[in-house]
């Protein structure tokens, strides 16, 4: 029941989600620290999105407190995060929503 409630709460809070949140969550399918997330997103978007330190810090805090990501380990004062099963579920639902959107508008 608790698990179901968490999922419902996360849906309300994250779907639809901002581009920043989407890319941060997506990049944590692999373990990464804050700076590595910025580099990865910059590469994915060919330099279009350059996440700032404050944005990354606050987004990670929000995602972690809502249980979408978790702390995997720590390395030289750097906290390394990874997506949780709840985060993956939300990410997949968001991907499905964006895909539907895309399919509806193309030709």
């Amino acid at each position: 029941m608790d698990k179901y409630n968490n999922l419902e709460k996360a849906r309300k809070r994250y779907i639809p989600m901002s581009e920043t949140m989407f890319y941060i969550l997506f990049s944590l399918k692999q373990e990464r620290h804050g700076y590595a997330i910025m580099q990865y997103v910059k590469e994915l978007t060919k330099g279009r999105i350059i996440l700032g330190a404050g944005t990354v810090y606050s987004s990670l805090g929000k995602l972690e407190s809502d249980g979408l990501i978790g702390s995997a380990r720590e390395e030289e004062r750097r906290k390394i995060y990874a997506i949780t099963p709840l985060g993956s579920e939300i990410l997949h639902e968001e991907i499905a929503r964006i895909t539907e959107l895309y399919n509806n508008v193309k030709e």
Partner: protein
Amino acid sequence: MSDRKIVLFSAFRYLLPSDYENWLEQMAADGWHINRFRQWSSIFMVFRKGEPKRYRFVYDPQVSPRKEYIPTYEQFGWEYLGRMASAHFWRMEYEGERPEAFSDHESIVKRNRRTIAAVSVSFIIFLVTVLTIGILLLFFADTLSNPDRTQLVIAEAFFGVIMITLGVVMVFLRKNESR
């Protein structure tokens, strides 16, 4: 020419975090530098003359930052300058594109709302004080001596002015929260 410049009440002259950052950036461009922010910097701060530099400053209110707060910013190349009450200050030297710590609209609005929250704490403290003195004056005026009553009226006016000012500041910040 003096190599020191003292600035009083800076935080009251530039209310918006982005205006405050821009002012610091302009000071650095004119060769006026501050390397450390302290509790009372909002009231009294000293700049020292040096080489003009192109710095991007960041004003980030964080009441209780998590332990990865400072390491995260440092990894991105920001230099920590300290805190003034709950506002943390960062700077980065740059050429070309100006670096941003808040890279989307949502983060900027949130940063500005944290600033409003910080002001609202002071506002509530003054509000409670004004109400308490007001109640004393309204219901217990007869039991007070004349000098006491005068003192209370002066205190009420003084705290009232501060409270109203803080209220005006909050409205101003709210109206400009996306800047």
